[in-house]
């Protein structure tokens, strides 16, 4: 009796499994459906070579065909339109062997001529392409030599480190298509654009990829991208089931959603993004000289850093969905992170002692410098960012414990940027760095003292400190080397110097949070952008 029941049960389970298997197989085979999610801003361009903003980058990812792609999950480089590639020993030349039989979305055949055309366009100085800037290692012409319809070599005037990974961002254009602007090699193509409302992408009928069973990719018929800046509205639409995913979720929204639908939210762990505080060290800044002396003192910066409780920032502000930052690179960047860096200890006592050694003293609970000036400064951040405002208020109380009085000021973003980059009329700022590139070359514009984005003291004609000169040297050395080990050693040292000198006081690394509807199948959120739809070709949407 019992055995019979067991057999019956087993049979039933087997039938159920078979049914499920055939259902899921059919769902994958048929695919179809429309995936809908939000862009947080209007895309500024549909030209893949001119992309600078997040919304345009998302559209480039969905529509652009690239020679090589960084797998967002493994962080490894994988072949796409090029089935193999080789970088020369001197790091100046890269040779691609291309797949044959591929066509653009309008049916125009793809060949090495198109790659050469794309490179010529990309490196045209008149285009001012941010993607092209990454390839500019030295002045001189970039030579794209078509060896055969499926082979091309590209030679740069000087070695470009991490050359092959840069091609992840280069969507190939068509040279011969009658409608160049709409011919794409990616899984989707632009079908409709309603400014301020939505972008509709449809499946590219000529997309070259198939899955393991031979089914044509992508599975989806279309993607509708709603242009929606308001996070509350985005969340509301997601809860109603009108959106398939939320690509980057704030910790507050994450927690709210987790309480009702824990199966829909995903915390992929620490991302590459960081939040940091820095002091104004610009010599010509319109702030009192005695404050400039504080801010330019590494001891002062280190003491302030030591007095900030990063664990509390992560736990209180980000509800545990962030990790105390160890340095300029997040541990999520598996290869480039310097694992010798230790967490910054929270110690108000040690901070006070360090400040006393520098001539600071406490008087009636207020910290004063050796000339009797009370240590008061303002921290500005962008209004509307709840997390940054809260971090500033927590830091305000942390620093109060060592007698430092902080005024928290929130400014609209343009005013903040104007103070940060034009008038330099500020004392300290809390802002974040969004890293899209795993390679440190993507941060040359931050670490070189001559750079505009060297925020604490930008556009220096010659490095004003010995350690900045050393960072310049190391960054240039790693950028011009093709030896990965040497590059890693150089950038490890850069990270150590930054942690020692604290021009940026790195606070936290945010976790990559996202939400995926139960109707979307195949999503595997990761830390690299685009977190939720990096494998868009294999996503499917089922009926609600």
């Amino acid at each position, binding site marked *: 009796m019992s055995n019979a029941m067991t057999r019956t049960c087993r049979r039933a389970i087997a039938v159920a499994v078979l049914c499920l298997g055939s259902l899921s197989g059919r769902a994958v085979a048929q695919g179809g459906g429309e995936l809908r999610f939000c862009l947080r801003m209007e895309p500024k361009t549909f030209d893949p070579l001119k992309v600078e903003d997040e919304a345009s980058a998302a559209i480039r990812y969905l529509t652009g065909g690239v020679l090589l792609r960084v797998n967002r999950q493994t962080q490894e480089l994988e072949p796409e339109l090029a089935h193999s590639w080789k970088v020369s020993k001197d790091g100046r030349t890269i040779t691609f062997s291309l797949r044959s039989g591929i066509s653009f979305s309008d049916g125009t055949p793809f060949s090495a001529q198109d790659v050469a055309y794309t490179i010529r366009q990309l490196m045209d100085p008149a285009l001012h392409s941010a993607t092209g800037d990454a390839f500019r290692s030295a002045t001189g012409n970039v030579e794209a030599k078509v060896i055969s319809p499926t082979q091309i070599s590209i030679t740069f005037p000087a070695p470009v480190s991490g050359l092959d990974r840069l091609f992840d961002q280069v969507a190939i254009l068509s040279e011969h298509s009658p409608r160049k602007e709409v011919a794409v090699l990616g899984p989707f193509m632009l079908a409709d654009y309603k400014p301020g409302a939505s972008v509709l992408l449809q499946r590219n009928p000529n997309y070259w990829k198939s899955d393991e069973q031979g089914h044509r990719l992508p599975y989806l018929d279309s993607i509708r991208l709603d242009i929606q800046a308001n996070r509350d509205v985005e969340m509301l639409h997601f809860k109603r089931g009108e959106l398939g995913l939320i690509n980057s979720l704030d910790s507050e929204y994450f927690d709210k959603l987790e309480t009702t639908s824990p199966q829909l939210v995903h915390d992929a762990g620490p991302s590459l993004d960081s939040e940091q505080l820095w002091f104004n060290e610009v010599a010509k800044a319109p702030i009192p000289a005695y404050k400039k002396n504080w801010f330019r003192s590494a001891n002062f910066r280190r003491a302030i850093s030591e007095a900030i409780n990063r664990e509390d920032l992560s736990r*209180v502000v980000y509800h545990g969905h962030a990790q105390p930052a160890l340095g300029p690179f997040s541990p999520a960047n598996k290869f480039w992170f310097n694992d010798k860096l230790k967490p910054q200890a929270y110690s108000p006592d040690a901070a006070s002692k360090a400040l006393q050694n520098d001539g600071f003293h406490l008087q009636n609970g207020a910290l004063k410098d050796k000339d009797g000036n009370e240590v008061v*400064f303002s921290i500005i951040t962008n*209004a509307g960012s*709840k997390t940054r405002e809260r971090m500033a*208020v927590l830091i305000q*109380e942390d620093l109060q414990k060592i007698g430092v009085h902080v*005024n*928290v000021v929130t400014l*609209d973003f*343009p005013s903040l940027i104007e103070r940060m980059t034009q008038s330099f009329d500020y004392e300290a700022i809390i802002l974040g760095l969004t890293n899209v590139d795993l390679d440190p070359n993507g941060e040359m514009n931050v670490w070189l003292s001559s750079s505009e984005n060297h925020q604490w003291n930008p556009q220096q004609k010659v490095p004003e400190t010995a350690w900045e000169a050393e960072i310049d040297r190391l960054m240039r050395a790693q950028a011009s080397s093709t030896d990965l080990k040497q590059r890693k050693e150089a950038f490890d040292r850069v990270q150590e110097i930054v942690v020692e000198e604290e021009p940026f006081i790195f606070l936290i690394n945010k976790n990559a949070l996202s939400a995926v509807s139960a109707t979307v199948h195949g999503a595997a959120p990761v830390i690299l952008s685009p977190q939720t739809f990096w494998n868009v070709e294999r996503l499917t949407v089922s009926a609600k």
Partner: protein
Amino acid sequence: MNLWRKLACALLAAILCVSAAANWLAPAGYAKQYREATDAPPSRTHWLGTDEIGRDRFARVLYGTRISLLLAPAAALLSTLMAALIGGLAGYLGGIWARVAMAVTDLFLSLPWLFLLITARALMPLNVSPLFSVTVTFLLLGLLGWTTAARVLCATAGSLRSADFVRQARAAGVSRQRLFWIHVMPNLKPVLYAQFWISIPVFILSEANLGILGLGVAEPLPSWGSLLKELEGLVSVGDEPWKFVPLILLVLAVMSFQFLLSGQEQVTA
């Protein structure tokens, strides 16, 4: 004094007294962060729970009430007086004066205040105390919030100008100045009172909205406006009803003002 006015008076007095006693009722203060108990529900130690960074909500409501109940009516008074002076006088004088005053009002209404406020904030020094920041915010609101009321008052004063009792007074040889202050202004009082109490919640909410521009109350100082911001994105009313206390206080205070002033209006009439 009718029952409703007495109740309103008592309620306002109670709110003011409790907020005045904030130092004794909430000795830990509005800025102290209890980081181990963030966003906590009401308890014996925190009667209204804590906010997102662990500050006692009861203390913040008390201190915020003190600030908003002092500064919002002050700003409302300033704007109402300016409206009375500009709108009332223009309506009473009529002709070219009314046209010029209304043109100026229209100009003010059409100015991009958002950008002017951003400029005003950009011109303010960064290292100012939170109290200075909140005072400047309400002062700006008072100085900019007179235009709509001025239009209403201009129209009302214009209709009074041709009223029988004004004509009679004018025929009896009453001077223009006396006519304005003794006969026209008292009749504008109901409109002025209405404009005054309407302005109070508007200014409280405007202060909250100005926070987006960095013009609101600076941290860690609380105000009703900044406390109301907590309600942004609240999923369900029933889940955390204690968060509605600032809103309930605002409604009660505004209603109390209304009852008090409507009674005053009846007395004046």
